[in-house]
């Protein structure tokens, strides 16, 4: 166990959740997680396919909960398929779609089926999704959800204070943080609040702006938060200059330096604008290279305990990135 985690030990239970991710982090190994988006249907095949693609290349994979407020297969149900396929799920749960009763009941069920990692999120607003007229719940917020899960696990109590039969479910509890959202000065403190509420690991929003991330982490380390919670830096390969622009201009809370658009464009220099296939290939290769460089950079930042690779609808890129970045030495060839 390295110094960072030794310092955190009194705050944590010994690794007893049965989470592989928790074990990796407790050993002081650099953790690698990815993301698996459930299908917009009921067939399990795409989940199985994606799980096989990621299996062995990551320690665990997030399974999103109606991501972008679009209806998809339930994150817990998808997570169970992943377990069957031998890929450890990090089940995401948002505050948008469930009240405290539904959350606790679903989590008891998830625990019964072997889910050990849960990521607590506020959730994207329903106006972005496919049911903009839906009523949102937000009975509790993500920080209150963290505290609820911790009390379920450590005290064996429901949010009401009532006792959970035969003890609480053992979860490894996570949360997200966006270092690039505003108010910037509040972000490190909000991270500290999440750690205080019960978060044991954090996955950040996609990082493209290293300067701002370094600044954020400097403050996080100053506050000693990295000793309380394992921080996984969020990275992801860009697919095109258009994607870089889209993330910068259309996704709230994203910081994407313009130099990256230029790099992607530069990679496609000399390629005929009509040859879409060649363009895409060049952009994607450059996107992966940028991602690999970012992984190497964030790995050197104090307080970063792992990376969370978000290759949205591009899971195939994950093994290549992991291999090229020198992560997961024991991964399949």
């Amino acid at each position: 166990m390295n110094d960072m985690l030794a310092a955190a030990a009194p705050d944590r239970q010994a690794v007893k959740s049965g989470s592989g991710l928790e074990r990796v982090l407790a050993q002081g190994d650099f953790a690698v997680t990815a993301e698996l988006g459930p299908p917009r249907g009921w067939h399990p095949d795409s989940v199985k396919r994606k799980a096989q693609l990621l299996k062995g290349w990551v320690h665990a994979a997030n399974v999103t909960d109606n991501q972008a407020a679009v209806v998809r297969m339930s994150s817990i149900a998808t997570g169970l398929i992943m377990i069957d396929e031998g890929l450890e799920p990090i089940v995401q749960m948002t505050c948008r779609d469930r009240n405290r009763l539904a959350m606790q009941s679903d989590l008891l069920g998830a625990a019964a089926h072997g889910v050990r990692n849960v990521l607590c999120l506020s959730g994207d607003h329903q106006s972005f999704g496919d049911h903009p007229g839906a009523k949102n719940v937000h009975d509790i917020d993500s920080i209150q959800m963290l505290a609820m899960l911790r009390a379920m696990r450590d005290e064996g109590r429901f949010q009401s204070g009532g006792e959970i039969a035969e003890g609480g479910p053992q979860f490894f509890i996570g949360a997200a943080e966006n270092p690039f959202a505003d108010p910037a000065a509040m972000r490190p403190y909000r991270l500290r609040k999440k750690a205080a509420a019960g978060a044991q690991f954090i996955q950040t929003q996609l990082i493209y702006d290293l300067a701002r991330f370094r600044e954020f982490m400097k403050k996080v380390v100053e506050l000693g938060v990295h000793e309380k919670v394992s921080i996984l830096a969020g990275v992801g390969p860009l697919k095109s200059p258009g994607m870089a622009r889209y993330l910068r201009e259309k996704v709230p809370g994203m910081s994407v330096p313009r130099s990256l658009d230029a790099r992607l464009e530069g990679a496609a220099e000399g390629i005929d604008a009509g040859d879409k296939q060649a363009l895409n290939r060049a952009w994607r290769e450059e996107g992966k290279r940028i991602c690999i460089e970012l992984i190497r950079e964030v790995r050197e930042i104090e307080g970063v305990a792992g990376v969370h690779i978000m290759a949205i609808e591009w899971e195939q890129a994950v093994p290549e990135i992991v291999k090229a970045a020198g992560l997961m030495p024991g991964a399949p060839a």
Partner: protein
Amino acid sequence: MIVAERKTLEAIAGMVAGSRKVLAVGCGTCVTVCFSGGRQEVAALAASLRMKRGIEGKPLAVDEAMVQRQCEWEYVDTLAEQVKNYDAVISLGCGVGVQTLAERFPALRVLPALNTLFMGLPSEQGVWEERCQACGNCILDKTGGICPVSRCAKQLFNGPCGGSQNGRCEVDASIPCAWHKIWERAEAMGTVEALMEIEPPKDWSTSRDGGLRRMVRQDLRSPSEEEGKE
């Protein structure tokens, strides 16, 4: 104030399609102040309805009336004789006003001409903004006088979500992020430390979730009402 806006003429005309003689009743309080249900708006709606039905060859008589507050029996009672002469009453009051009329005059069709939007204020000329959702358990002391229940799209109690950018809400860039404002105010007042405390889950039983809400002030109740209850 309670802020409301008028339904479309088509929607209102549809409700009175089978009527020949209706009374449009405005309210002299909140909806007058937000220019939705005052004397002028009653006159405008009445004129539009008459014209529309005239063009369609099915004339509709629309009379106009005002009460000072549609949400109180004593004001609504002033209409008791008058309403007997109509097929229906179109209320230009808020949802409370419509229901007060419907409850007072059980034999009468009472129809809403407005959509009641929220409790709020005129934030600038011609713009009204929500400020309170009547959750029944005010926490404005903890949030610097800025309400995350009514002003945050996700009703967060422990800080802004990851979609707050440049002081704006991820839902719509025209909406200020409530938590950005709460943070700025706390910084200016030197009270950010208080925002570091974890706010526990809210008890929503005082909100709409608890069912019909009622406030009883025993000290204001008359002995006869108390007896009536026995």
